[in-house]
């Protein structure tokens, strides 16, 4: 009988843990965001400031933009911070989100091996650079995860008139992984290019032979926006705290704090909520 008693005690303890984690802390919101904002270290810097100024504990689930929008659709997050204008507008139009606010931006960059076998550096546009890479068959690693970065990349290929998946050979590889994992793969391949957001690229520590080759094309503009998950669709959404967070992030103080996040003297995100 003794062992049965022990089991009962263990079971009781386990349920106490379960119950405890349900009750812990009501003043928090769940933010579904992108891997770029997490991997760059932005949230580690920014969220303690949010907590200090608003008292709200923002819990970040970092996934690709596609998955973040899906989490919002299911009501599994209160707020989204994502970067795919087309997908966001569609999300709002379908009634899944409200109150979309553009909050900050940076840009995408084309990175590849320093020796640049496809001679992509110095291309007049990102599209021209992709055409050169495809022509040389040097290799391109795609996120392939329906993230904001992946969606932009697919639009660029379309504009370049190339269907990389169909063009034969194995020069185009879809990783199905986050930005950091793709940068690791690109660094390891020694022969491949990829498109990254500037924040993850600057914060990335395993660059080895990789270099930034193309930047500055207007197509590479990368806008991040906040969207409130529609409380009418999902009544459990913490609208009050979520709006408090959104208001602070788009306030003068919150915007200044975004500009204050720097790596090697470069701001990784530039605030633009107040310019609209």
């Amino acid at each position, binding site marked *: 009988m003794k062992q049965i008693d022990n089991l009962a005690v263990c079971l009781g303890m*386990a349920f106490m843990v379960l119950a405890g984690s349900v009750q812990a802390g009501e003043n928090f919101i769940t933010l579904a965001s992108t891997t770029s904002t997490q991997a760059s270290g932005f949230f580690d810097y920014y969220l303690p400031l949010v907590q200090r100024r608003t008292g709200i504990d923002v*819990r970040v689930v970092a996934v690709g933009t596609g998955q973040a929008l899906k989490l919002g659709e299911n009501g599994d997050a209160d707020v989204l911070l994502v970067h795919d204008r087309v997908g966001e507008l569609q999300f709002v139009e379908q009634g899944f989100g409200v109150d979309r606010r553009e909050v900050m931006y940076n840009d995408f960059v084309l990175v590849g091996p320093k020796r640049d076998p496809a001679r992509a550096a110095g291309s007049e546009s990102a599209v021209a650079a992709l055409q050169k890479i495809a022509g040389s068959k040097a290799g391109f690693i795609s996120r392939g995860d329906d993230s904001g970065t992946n969606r932009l990349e697919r639009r660029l290929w379309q504009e370049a008139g190339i269907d990389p998946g169909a063009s034969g050979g194995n020069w185009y590889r879809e990783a199905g992984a986050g930005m950091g*994992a793709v940068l690791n793969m690109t660094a390891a391949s020694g022969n491949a290019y990829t498109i990254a957001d500037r924040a993850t690229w600057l914060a990335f520590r395993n660059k080895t032979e990789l270099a930034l080759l193309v930047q500055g094309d207007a197509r590479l503009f990368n806008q991040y926006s906040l969207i409130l998950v529609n409380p009418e669709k999902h009544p459990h959404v913490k609208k009050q705290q979520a709006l408090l967070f959104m208001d602070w992030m788009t306030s003068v103080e919150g915007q200044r704090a975004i500009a204050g996040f720097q790596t090697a003297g470069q701001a990784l995100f530039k605030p633009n909520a107040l310019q609209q």
Partner: protein
Amino acid sequence: MLDLDESLVEIILVSLRVSVTATVLAAVVGFLLGAVLAIWRFPGRGALLVLLNAMMGLPPVVVGLLVYLLLSRAGPMGSLGLLFTESAMIIAQWLLVTPLIAALTQQIVADLMLEYREQLYSLGAKRWTMLQTLLWEGRYSLLTVMLAGFGRAISEVGAVLIVGGNIAHHTRVMTTVIALETSKGNLTIALALGMILIALACMINAAAAFSKIYAARLYG
């Protein structure tokens, strides 16, 4: 790196709390289920055994997806608000570990059954008494089974990443932080964290081994 040091203890504690709880709960169900399958004969028993054995190889990411669909606000248990909490991670790991513990327990108890059958029947033992006796007799082997279950729980990343969300200070565990640091390109830090995870597993196994020796002396 600095902030990592500060939160390392916290991450280890979350890892341990989640995986120990999941393993203990899985042991409660798994020991009973395994023993019942070894002692009782009922229709569908064979199919259940095959299923259990197959589920030992269940991919964590599939379990993660199932638990996500279950706990999502759009899912049947969404109103509980358990997604992205330690509870969600415990449920996922419990689902991963229970079949493993049940299947191995079934084998251990079935072997003991062969050994003790005559004795138990001659004493006129009821099946419920047999179950308790055999589980007690197999306690050292069952401890090893629990350790195997714990190993599966603490080492998996696919399920906890989906249902926990790798939220800093809440659902970030050893495996998800290793994945995160790898994605930042901090390969040395990721490797160091991996070493800590291995050391942790060694310590727990050593503790179990010592308690086994100690208990063996105590009970003879």
